[in-house]
């Protein structure tokens, strides 16, 4: 990602930083000043890239490893155990039976996660499937989307779904029988109240952090974000201890939840948090959430609104209040990332950013729109004028592309969903993201999505102008994300003086090309000079 030296054979590392990059001869001269350098040929046949940067993820990803993984793809747990991908509903059920048989506290709820029905088109999982695992305790399977969960009859009876007739949160078959699927926020709430398990307890324990870092590390990530955290008073100390430990395999950028207090208090809290910044832990930005999600019909869309006629979505904050926060943080010189999904919300966010900048001019604010999935070319032009960056939710193309074409946006607008090509063409600084745990955290997969724009149903979104090249995608998951975090002078490329953060890959993505990008094996990472190898084979 260094234009002066896009390819090299050797890299030298000292004191957590890159001493030099180039040929062995280029590096050789550094020994005069720095003493002998030891040649490590372990990765001589591998490809080294700048460590990947996940610019929009959530620490909550780390919580799920307390539960049991039942996803479609092989996944390595934070402890190095490889959880094999399960290729049918029967395989998922068999795995759950095996887990239940091995459990000691068989009366406690059995919770699994990562189930992705996209891959099982013949039928849906139902309560009977999970009854075959256990009938005398709760069995809950969380879908990868986190918008649906499956439960057994034990949960359905406790939740008293028979009495409820609200089809918004209980899926029913043709005969009106509840199938065991709980839908949306209220479905989750119902299942959580029934089992007494709070799946959403604020994820901030050191164990969660370590799990999160290990999950990210396995995909080549060397810096990840926890993109919204209310940071209760004093919580930074424990976080600092965990992240600063030498064996903690990642840098972490935490976005403070802007609306968790009044604007002036928020500014003061951010300034306080920034005194806890370290080499590996940064409190550098504020996150504001302005609307909901497109697939949940809670994003704010401009006329003609949703393709299926659903009523327009929800504001998560009053536009006027969003403006108050943006003004306060802009005045204090604190960067803000605004979650906008629908195009109406994007317009309002840009209006409010413009107002804030008129009140408090700031040439390099780098406020960024996160998701920003429905942005048009006009929106990108305006972002360019205002100096606003974008971090697009490219994984959506794969996971919800079909739904956007058929249900939420319709084919015309879905063609420009997460238009990375448009952003670059208009000159808007671009990053792309997973929003983990909403979708799988794996920057090479995210890059693959932005390059190929292929839905899980096999449809290509757009006419090609929205696609970006492999090189552009690799830039987006390294320098692009670094720029969005104002860390481009430290990380994102391999060049002298920068931090020694490296992703070690089995193959060169340029050679592999667009199609195989997501399947490249990650061997490990280096973070600040410390090598972390994958035990098994991560996806």
């Amino acid at each position: 990602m260094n234009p002066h030296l896009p390819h090299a054979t050797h890299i030298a590392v000292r004191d957590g930083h890159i001493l030099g990059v180039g040929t062995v001869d280029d590096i050789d001269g550094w020994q005069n000043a720095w003493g002998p350098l030891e040649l490590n040929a372990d990765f001589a046949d591998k490809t080294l890239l700048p460590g990947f940067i996940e610019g929009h993820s959530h620490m909550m990803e780390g919580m799920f490893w307390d539960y049991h993984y039942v996803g479609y793809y092989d996944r390595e747990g934070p402890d190095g155990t490889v959880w094999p991908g399960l290729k049918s509903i029967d395989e998922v059920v068999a795995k759950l039976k095996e887990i239940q048989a091995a459990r000691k506290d068989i009366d406690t709820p059995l919770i699994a996660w990562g189930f992705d029905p996209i891959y099982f088109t013949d039928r849906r999982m139902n309560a009977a499937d999970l009854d075959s695992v256990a009938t005398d305790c709760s069995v809950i399977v969380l879908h990868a989307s986190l918008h649906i969960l499956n439960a057994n009859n034990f949960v359905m009876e406790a939740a008293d779904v028979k009495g409820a007739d609200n089809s918004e949160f209980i899926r029913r078959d043709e005969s009106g029988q509840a199938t065991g699927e709980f839908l949306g926020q209220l479905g989750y709430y119902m299942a959580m109240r029934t089992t007494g398990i709070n799946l959403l307890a604020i994820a901030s324990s050191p164990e969660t952090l370590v799990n999160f870092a290990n999950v990210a590390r396995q995909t080549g990530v060397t810096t990840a974000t926890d993109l919204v955290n209310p940071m209760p008073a004093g919580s930074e100390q424990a976080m600092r201890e965990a992240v600063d430990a030498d064996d903690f395999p990642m840098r972490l950028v935490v976005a403070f939840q802007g609306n968790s207090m009044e604007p002036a208090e928020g500014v003061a809290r951010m300034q306080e948090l920034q005194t806890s910044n370290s080499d590996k832990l940064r409190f550098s930005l504020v996150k504001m959430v302005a609307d909901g999600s497109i697939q949940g019909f809670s994003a704010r869309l401009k006329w003609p609104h949703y393709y299926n006629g659903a009523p327009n979505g929800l504001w998560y904050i009053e536009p006027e209040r969003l403006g108050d926060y943006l003004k306060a943080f802009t005045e204090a010189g604190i960067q803000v990332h605004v979650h906008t999904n629908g195009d109406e919300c994007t317009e309002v966010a840009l209006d409010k950013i413009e107002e804030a900048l008129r009140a408090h001019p700031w040439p390099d604010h780098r406020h960024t729109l996160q998701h920003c999935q429905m942005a048009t070319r006009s929106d990108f032009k305006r972002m360019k004028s205002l100096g606003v960056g974008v971090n697009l939710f490219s994984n959506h193309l794969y996971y919800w592309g079909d739904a956007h074409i058929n249900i939420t946006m319709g084919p015309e607008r879905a063609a420009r969903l997460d238009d990375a090509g448009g952003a670059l063409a208009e000159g808007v600084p671009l990053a792309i993201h997973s929003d983990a745990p909403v979708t799988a955290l794996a920057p090479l997969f995210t890059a693959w999505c932005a390059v190929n724009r292929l839905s899980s149903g096999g449809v290509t979104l757009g006419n090609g102008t929205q696609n970006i090249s492999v090189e552009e995608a690799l830039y987006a998951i390294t320098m692009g994300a670094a720029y969005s975090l104002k860390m481009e002078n430290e990380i994102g490329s391999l060049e002298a003086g920068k931090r020694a953060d490296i992703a070690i890959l089995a193959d060169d993505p340029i050679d592999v090309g667009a199609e195989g990008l997501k399947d490249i094996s990650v061997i490990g990472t280096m973070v600040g000079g410390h090598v972390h190898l994958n035990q098994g084979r991560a996806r």
Partner: protein
Amino acid sequence: MNRLPQIPLTIISGFLGSGKTSLLNHLLTQSGLENAPSEKSGRRITAMVNDFGALNIDAELIAAKHGNQIALANGCVCCSIGDDLMRSFMDVMQQSPLPDHIVIEASGVAEPRRIAGFASVDPQLRLDGIVTLVDASAHNVHSKDPYLADNYAKQIEAAHLLLISKPDLADTATLENLESELAAQKPDVPMAHVTHGVLPIDLVLGLNGDHKIPQPQEIIEHGFVQWAGHLTDIPRAALIAKLENLRPHVLRAKGVLRDAEGAYVLHLAGGLITTAPYAGKASGHFVIIGQPQMPDAAALEKIFRQNEAA
């Protein structure tokens, strides 16, 4: 499953600046005062708010403040930070002891029906009512806001009680227009004026929002009584006379009725009784809201049925 006692849930909805926080301050203060006039004083309220910023709770009521919770002598206030209501509900429903009443101060852009959904899935919760505040001085702006007009309409649509705030800041014509607009949109929903959030707390916390059609008589407590019935043909002059006789104890009334001249709509609002021809089919629905001095249900039944055409 054992049925546990249900906790009533009241949602205070309304736009930014409509007076939600003033109302909540008043509810918390009044319910906390030992010698409060309300016979239900002392109930433990858990309030969920978006931010503590504008809350102005009597210092004597605050027992402790830590993190996103303020413990009160008679309950607590927790900050539900933005959109994360699910987490807040999980926390509140694990409180011990559980509160007597939960009040949510919704954000200015919240859809109160969605919040009410929690009560529909949690067997330990019962939706007591959605109270929507309408800012009389800003109604014309809010109802035409290019980004928020749909939200505004939804908040009014969801209301079980409409409170018109800042009536003193609107001129009479504006206020009357607003009242008739709201009455047309929500004919079954009681309406009252509120200034600085001050009103009998039982009017808010005792409101029963479970029903979809008003009960024959519903005592809303402390100053408000509602009676509703279906009247068949009734001459408008006779009906007006009956309502005049009930003054001053009847505060408002509305009916979509018919007589020999055809279908008509009757309003009693702002002290004026008006009738107007009604284009649609008369439903026969008639509802009045008044003070406790108003005759009881049986008496009202008798009064209003007397002149009905057989």
